[in-house]
């Protein structure tokens, strides 16, 4: 037994009290869906977890109608302090049920329990706490006194941080006075459905939050529903683009948090121990299923060999396996489809001439797994340097001068995040100024906080989530023009002629 051989330490599943099947959470109750139900599985062993209802257009209608009713009769009329108290309740209930939510998340998503337990779920509680306090302080959101909510928010979230993304979306929407219809990802609906039970425990008024499950067509029906005032989407740039097109001219306020291909820049004077940990965290956190992952390592040429050799050494100590095991560092890839995408792009990387190295891992027989992988000798034009892999695959490029590092870092249509590693403060600030990225981590990586705005430049989307900026995304100025009346065919409806202040 070497120092790396730990005894198994799995978190018990007995804390979960799952139902065999889950309906849609509409107007405060679980109801049957009218689409074809599907089964959510554990990506670690492909075993079924529960049957999940699928919402069709009729169900989307019902959910939006419930949200509209709740908006008009209850939520928009409630005092900010009472809205805040509901959010505080939710935050507390999440904290009380942290372990259960963490187990459910790791089971359904495949991420290591230490991440769901120590990052995802605590962040969910933090998000509700943060925005709870905003609910009665909206005058300070930056839009002037007396800002107004938008109405019904349609929210579609991805599978990489299922519950955390839900919190990022729901908390600011409710604090601002909007009501919500949210659709979790098809492969990770479980924690959202447990969250629905939490909403019942919190006695949140019916219809304020509606959770509907389903695949892409459910999401599409939701964001394109004519009675929706706000669309918030996190996911791929392709889908984000489609949403931007289909909502054009409708006056719906849009927040898109899309893909990324972050450059993590390591200068030769970087604090190397921290940098190695930061690089590993940057791309192998959550199996690399992170839109802001540091998937392009830009390392100064004279320290390239040292960095790569230390990285390989470090990656060889990572433990891949049962997501519910407390010692696991790398969990399962979320789905077979995602695994195929990662494999395909990795094969392309080799075919285009980059050199592949993968950590030696024992791959379990069942489930979806991909060993931590590094590509060296990558050039800017390689597909693995341009396309989001969304997996544990790091592409390494080199540079000689800061100017070259900045040019290469910005050589992407994305602009979500970036990393800088150097001990020189002035260089950090100068480089940070020139990077076209919404979040820049200097001598750290993958830090998130409810008070800190997150979101991208360019094709990484628009709008920010988190902080005051994230709150403003769910508000309109008191003098703002009235919202557009819902249109039967939103893509063709012109914005109403509006009266505002003008000279």
């Amino acid at each position, binding site marked *: 037994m070497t120092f790396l051989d730990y005894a198994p330490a799995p978190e018990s599943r007995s804390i979960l009290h799952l139902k065999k099947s889950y309906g849609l959470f509409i107007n405060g109750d679980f109801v049957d869906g009218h689409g074809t139900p599907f089964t959510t599985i554990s990506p670690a062993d492909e075993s079924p977890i529960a049957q999940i209802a699928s919402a069709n257009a009729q169900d989307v209608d019902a959910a939006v109608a419930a949200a509209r009713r709740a908006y008009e009769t209850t939520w928009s009329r409630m005092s900010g302090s009472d809205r805040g108290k509901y959010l505080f309740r939710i935050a507390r209930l999440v904290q009380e049920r942290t372990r259960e939510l963490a187990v459910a998340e790791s089971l359904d998503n495949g991420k290591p329990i230490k991440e769901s337990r120590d990052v995802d779920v605590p962040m969910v509680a*933090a998000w509700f706490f943060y925005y709870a306090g905003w609910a009665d302080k909206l005058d300070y959101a*930056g839009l002037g006194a007396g800002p107004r909510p938008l109405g019904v928010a349609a929210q579609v979230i991805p599978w990489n941080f299922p519950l955390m993304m839900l919190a990022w979306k729901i908390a600011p929407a409710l604090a601002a006075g909007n009501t919500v219809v949210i659709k979790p990802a098809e492969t990770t609906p479980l924690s959202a459905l447990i969250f629905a039970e939490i909403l019942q425990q919190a006695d949140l008024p019916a219809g304020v939050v509606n959770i509907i499950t389903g695949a892409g067509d459910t999401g599409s029906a939701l964001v394109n529903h004519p009675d929706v005032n706000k669309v918030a989407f996190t996911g791929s*740039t392709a889908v*984000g*683009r489609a949403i*931007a*097109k289909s909502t*054009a*001219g409708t*006056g719906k306020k849009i927040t*898109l948090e*899309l893909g990324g291909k972050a450059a993590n820049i390591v200068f030769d004077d970087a604090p190397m121990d921290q940098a190695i940990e930061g690089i590993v965290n940057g791309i192998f956190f959550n199996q690399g299923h992170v839109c802001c992952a540091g998937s392009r390592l830009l390392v100064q040429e004279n320290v390239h060999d040292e960095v790569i050799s230390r990285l390989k050494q470090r990656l060889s100590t990572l433990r891949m396996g049962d997501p519910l095991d407390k010692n696991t560092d790398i969990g399962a890839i979320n789905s077979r489809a995602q695994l195929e995408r990662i494999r395909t792009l990795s094969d392309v990387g080799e075919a285009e001439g980059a050199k592949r190295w993968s950590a030696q891992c024992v791959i379990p027989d069942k489930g979806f797994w991909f060993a931590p992988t590094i590509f060296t000798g990558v050039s800017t034009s390689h597909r693995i340097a341009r396309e989001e892999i969304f997996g544990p695959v790091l592409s390494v490029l080199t540079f000689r001068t800061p100017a070259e590092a900045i040019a290469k870092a910005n050589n992407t*249509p994305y*602009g979500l995040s970036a990393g800088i590693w150097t001990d020189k403060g002035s260089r*950090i600030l100068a480089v*940070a100024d020139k*990077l076209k*990225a*919404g*979040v*820049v*981590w*200097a*001598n*750290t990586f993958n*830090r998130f*906080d409810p*008070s*800190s*705005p*997150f*979101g991208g*430049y*360019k*094709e990484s*989307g*628009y709008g*920010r989530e988190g*902080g*005051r*900026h994230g709150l403003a995304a769910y508000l309109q*100025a008191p003098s703002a023009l009235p919202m557009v009346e819902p249109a039967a065919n939103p*893509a*063709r409806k*012109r*914005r109403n*002629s*509006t009266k*505002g*202040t*003008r*000279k």
Partner: protein
Amino acid sequence: MTRLAVPKTYKLYIGGAFPRSESGRVYEVVTKRGAFIANAAKGSRKDARDAVRAARAAVSGWAGATGYNRGQVLYRIAELLEGRRVQFVDEIRAGEGVSETVAQQQVDSAIDVWVWYAGWADKYVQVAGNTNPVAGPYFNISTPEPTGVVAVIAPQDSSLLGLVSVLAPVLVSGNTAVVVASETLPLSAISLSEILATSDVPAGVVNVLTGSPAEIAPWLASHADVNALDLAGAEALDWIDLQIAAADTLKRVLPPEPGIPAPSVHRITFFTETKTVWHPKGLI
């Protein structure tokens, strides 16, 4: 005996120069009653692309200038507008058929709006940005930055005030602009360009196209090197199609606004991106 006047040739303003349209086309600018005033250049797709290229090249210098510097450079434009007010009043009267008093009011307002925006150059960051009290040993600050190249369809029913009301807020933060002027009232836009060309606004920061917005706008909306689109004056166009075209590269799009947009900080911040920078502060 009256002196024979020397009429002015109105051209495009691209990259600090005044070229004719590469297409060789012009169109007649006429008075309210239909009398000929001048031939304006009828900008083409190629002109639009040239303008975007000039605007892109100018971003780093203009965005990299200090807010204090940008504010002074912009304030200077207001000074020059004052000096040329007679020319603007004449052009506005000729094009819009309004009285001298009304034309003067428009010039006054344009100058005041310009001064108001110029003053924001070294302040909007303080209003739109903030530090964030994150739960950990980190310094964390969010600041707005210019988004890059902004294509603007100027209000179509105003000569100068409409143009100034959409152009100034784009420039304040350090964006560069490609502006499609009012099709029927383009003269003030070119005269303003002459002011810009002799001021300290670097070449390429403002590029002005005259001609048909319906013809030019789609090329700007779909241009991959344009970061944002202000459709202020596009209400009469198929602007939803423009917004759809803009979605291909996820441009930020400000929808049409009838009339002349009122001065607002929102017009500045809409064309900015919030950047959040983290750094540990654990070591002592």
